Structure formats: structure tokens, C-alpha cells
């Protein structure tokens, strides 16, 4: 019974926590511009993140190492500083996108500029981390995040043609605007394969002292959690395809895209869009801030833990404080959150081989995994998807940045 509750809570938090600035922004733009044409990227990204979270949960359960722990002990500092540096940069950029997304949701709801909202949003995130217990925050915000299921309700209301939706799961020949198509595919992959989710999940698993008897639960939570979570992102893309695309709205900004729920859900549409964006971004910002503290603490051997007071781990607490201050700067400067999000997602994909490659090596090392090393399918799926994403990024990013 207890493990059933654990599985249920794990799946619910994955669903509630799936949508954030990256997945909402990229799904809206993709749906509005290419209708269902990029659903395959979302499916690929989901398969990859499900494999990655399962892997890190397994690493924690068998070896009792977090990903960062294992990387430092397996490769030593002179190698580990590179993936660590890359993850710090990626986490900071994505954190800035989330602060921007939450601030913009409040701008849409109140009419007051996001530059004004950036300070209170950052302070709310910091206060929750500083005064709250992380366990309660993590589950609380993720359960609030179930509001994002309004996108699923909207799709049911809109009644899409399911055969056309299913066709989008198979990559088609690139349309005329190939560069933007590839750039959006990269964005979707970057939003789905979030490195912070991987290290965050593994820290939680080590802290909860998972054992090999938890491997089954780990497999179910990572597959079903990510699978159901991605249904919400798929719903965003379908809703954008049915509402924005026929009206010629390209969703170049969140302001343009905010009408996506107004047609299926009427006067509840805009408030629900704002609530989904704000809560999704807030939840992700909390996890990202913690992740920055986790990865530095685990790399340098500082004290870390979900439920310790700031005075018990001063360096840990000051790390997320400084990270939040830095990440609030783009919003204070008025940088468009959607552009920042697309940029952050592209950078994420470029950094993925550096972040995931060493993990694959560890996952095939019997010293750590004993008889639970990766199988052929897991290795192949992750390597092929990361490889496709990386090559697409190398082709699409220069073209798109030059064009814009």
C-alpha cells in the first residue's frame, strides 16, 4: 500500500511538474507554426528523459551515488569541471527563463510589466526555499501544477482529428521553412530532456535511501510519470494547432499565445493559461535553484539535503540565493521571456552530450551498477536521441540565429 502511494505521488508530481517555460513555449510555437508536425520531437524527448530518470534512479538505488557523486569519483575533478560548468550555465539560463515566464504570466493577469514582477517572483521563490521544507514545496507545487491539465480538457473540448494527430508522431519531410522547423525541434528536445530533472531526481533518490527493491517502483514512476506528463505538453501543441494556427497567430510571444485556451474554455481560458504558466514556471524555478545548490554541493563535498535549515548548510543556501539573484537580471532588463526560453533550450541541447555522455559510461560500469548496468536498448535509445538532437542543433542554431 505504502509503495502504491509512493508510485501514485511520484506520477502525480511528474504530471504536475512537467509543464514549465520551455515545454509551454516550444509546444505553443510548434503547434501554432507547424500544427502537429513536431509531435515526434516531443515523443522522442519524452522517451529520452524517461530513460535518463530511470537510469539515475537505478544508479542511486544500486550504488547509493548521485549522478554528480559518480561523475566526480569515476572521472576525477579535471574532467568533471567541464560537465559541471556546462550544467551551471544551462541551469542558470533555464532558471532565468522560468522567472521570466512566471513574471510574464503575472503581467498577462494584471497588466503590470514583467520587469516589476521579476523582483517579487524571485523573492517568493527564495522565501519558499529559505523558510519552507523542500519536500512539502516539491509535492505542493507539483500538485498545484495539476492545473495544467486544463490543456487536456481544452483539447477534449476542441475535438481534434486523431488520425492527423497520430501522423504527427512520425517525422515528415521538413516544410518550406526548414530552418525554423529544425530550430523548434531542437527547442522541444531541449525542453523535454532537462538535465536538471536528471540530477534532481537522483539527489532525491539518494536522500530517500532507495534500495534495489525500489527498482520496480523507479521504472514505473519514470515511465508513467514522464509519459503522462508529456500528454500535457502534447495537449498544449494540439490546442495551439487548433486555435492559433488557423487564425495565423504564430505565437512569437506569450502575449500572442495567451488566447489558446480562450476559445475552448471561454472566460476561464485566460486565467487558466496564466495560472498554468505561473505555477509551471514557479515549480521548475524551485527545482532549478535547488539543483544548482545540489550539483555544487555534491561536486565539492559540502553538506546538502532537502530538509535542512539554511544555518545547517550555509554554502548550499547561499548558492541558490546567488543563483536566483543572477537569474532575475534578464527579466529585470526586460528581455522577452519566450526568446530567452528558446535560446536556453538550444544551449541545453548543445550541452547534452557533455552532460549525458559521462552518465552513460557510469551506467555501464559494473563497479557502480553491479548486475544492473544498462541494457543495449537503453544505451542505444539515449545515444541515438541525444545524437539526433545534437546534430539538429548544430545545423539549425547558426541558421536561425543568423536569420533573426
Amino acid at each position: 500500500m505504502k509503495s502504491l502511494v509512493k508510485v501514485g505521488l511520484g506520477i502525480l508530481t511528474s504530471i504536475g511538474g512537467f509543464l514549465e517555460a520551455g515545454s509551454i513555449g516550444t509546444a505553443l510555437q510548434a503547434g501554432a507554426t507547424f500544427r502537429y508536425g513536431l509531435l515526434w520531437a516531443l515523443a522522442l524527448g519524452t522517451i529520452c528523459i524517461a530513460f535518463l530518470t530511470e537510469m539515475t534512479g537505478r544508479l542511486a538505488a544500486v550504488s547509493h551515488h548521485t549522478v554528480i557523486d559518480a561523475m566526480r569519483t569515476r572521472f576525477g575533478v579535471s574532467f568533471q569541471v567541464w560537465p559541471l560548468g556546462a550544467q551551471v550555465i544551462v541551469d542558470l539560463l533555464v532558471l532565468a527563463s522560468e522567472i521570466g515566464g512566471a513574471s510574464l504570466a503575472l503581467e498577462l493577469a494584471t497588466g503590470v510589466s514583467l520587469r516589476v514582477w521579476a523582483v517579487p517572483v524571485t523573492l517568493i521563490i527564495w522565501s519558499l526555499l529559505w523558510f519552507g521544507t523542500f519536500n512539502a514545496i516539491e509535492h505542493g507545487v507539483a500538485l498545484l501544477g495539476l492545473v495544467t491539465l486544463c490543456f487536456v480538457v481544452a483539447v477534449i473540448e476542441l475535438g481534434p482529428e486523431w488520425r492527423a494527430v497520430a501522423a504527427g508522431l512520425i517525422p515528415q519531410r521538413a516544410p518550406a521553412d526548414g530552418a525554423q522547423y529544425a530550430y523548434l525541434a531542437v527547442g522541444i528536445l531541449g525542453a523535454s530532456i532537462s538535465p536538471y530533472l536528471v540530477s534532481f531526481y537522483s539527489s532525491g533518490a539518494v536522500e530517500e535511501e532507495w534500495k534495489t527493491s525500489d527498482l520496480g517502483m523507479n521504472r514505473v514512476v519514470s515511465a508513467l510519470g514522464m509519459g503522462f506528463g508529456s500528454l500535457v505538453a502534447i495537449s498544449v501543441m494540439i490546442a495551439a494547432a487548433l486555435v492559433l494556427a488557423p487564425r495565423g497567430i504564430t505565437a512569437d510571444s506569450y502575449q500572442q499565445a495567451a488566447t489558446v485556451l480562450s476559445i475552448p474554455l471561454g472566460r476561464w481560458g485566460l486565467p487558466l493559461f496564466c495560472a498554468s504558466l505561473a505555477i509551471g514556471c514557479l515549480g521548475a524555478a524551485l527545482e532549478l535553484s535547488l539543483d544548482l545548490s545540489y550539483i555544487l554541493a555534491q561536486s565539492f563535498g559540502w553538506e546538502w539535503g532537502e530538509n535542512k535549515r539554511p544555518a545547517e548548510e550555509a554554502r548550499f543556501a547561499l548558492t541558490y540565493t546567488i543563483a536566483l539573484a543572477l537569474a532575475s537580471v534578464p527579466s529585470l532588463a526586460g528581455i522577452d521571456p519566450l526568446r530567452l526560453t528558446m535560446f536556453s533550450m538550444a544551449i541545453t541541447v548543445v550541452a547534452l552530450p557533455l552532460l549525458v555522455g559521462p552518465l552513460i559510461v557510469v551506467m555501464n560500469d559494473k563497479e557502480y551498477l553491479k548486475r544492473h548496468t544498462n541494457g543495449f536498448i537503453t544505451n542505444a535509445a539515449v545515444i541515438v536521441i541525444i545524437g539526433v538532437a545534437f546534430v539538429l542543433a548544430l545545423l539549425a542554431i547558426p541558421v536561425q540565429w543568423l536569420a533573426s
Partner: protein
Amino acid sequence: MPEHNQIDLVRDLLDVQLRDRRGRRIGRVDGVVLEVRDGLPPRVAAMEVGALAFAKRVHPRLARLLRSVALRCFPVSLRSVYFPLTLFRRVGVDVELDVDAMHDRRLLRLEKWLRRHIVERLPGA
């Protein structure tokens, strides 16, 4: 292959997480010091823990830069701490040392300074 009562220095000691006797994390093994003896094989003299040892392994220039910055504007010294191997005791995947970090002035110098001068002055700490 090492026997069960032997330690592989790189695999089992370097970079391993250290904890004090209360289980508190106190850093990682950033370096291993060998003592070279006349006519005898080298012997492990100590485990080294410290930011400068860490930086030196990344690149000697980083260590020089860190040392000069620390001398000018760091509130605490970055001197490494050395532990004899006699304190080594494996507990799970970490190594426990028979020290008390909270009462040992050599340990957690930056952590204690930040706590006293910044964190404890903020509400809710």
C-alpha cells in the same frame, strides 16, 4: 587486482566524500600525499582536502589565480587540511573520519564564516 584489505588510491580514495564522526559531510579527498623514503617504497602520508588542492588538479594556473584572489579578498584561509590514513574508515560509499567538524577549527572554515557573518543574520535561518 587489490585484495579486500587493500585500497586502490585512485578508485577508492581520491575524490571520495568525507564525513565526520557525526555523519556531517566535510569535503572530498582532493589529493593524496605520498612520502618518498630512501631505499623504501613510497608510503601514503595523508589525504589532502582543500580548494587549492582541487584547483591544482584542474589546472595549476587556476590554483595560482585562486590563491592570489583568496589572499586579497577571502575572509578565511584556503590552506589544505591533511588527514593521516589511520583515520580512514569506509562507511557505505563514503569515508568517515574520527573528527568533529563543528569543533575542529581547521575544518569547514568558509562554511562557519558564512554562517556566522551572513546566514544567521537573515531571518528564518
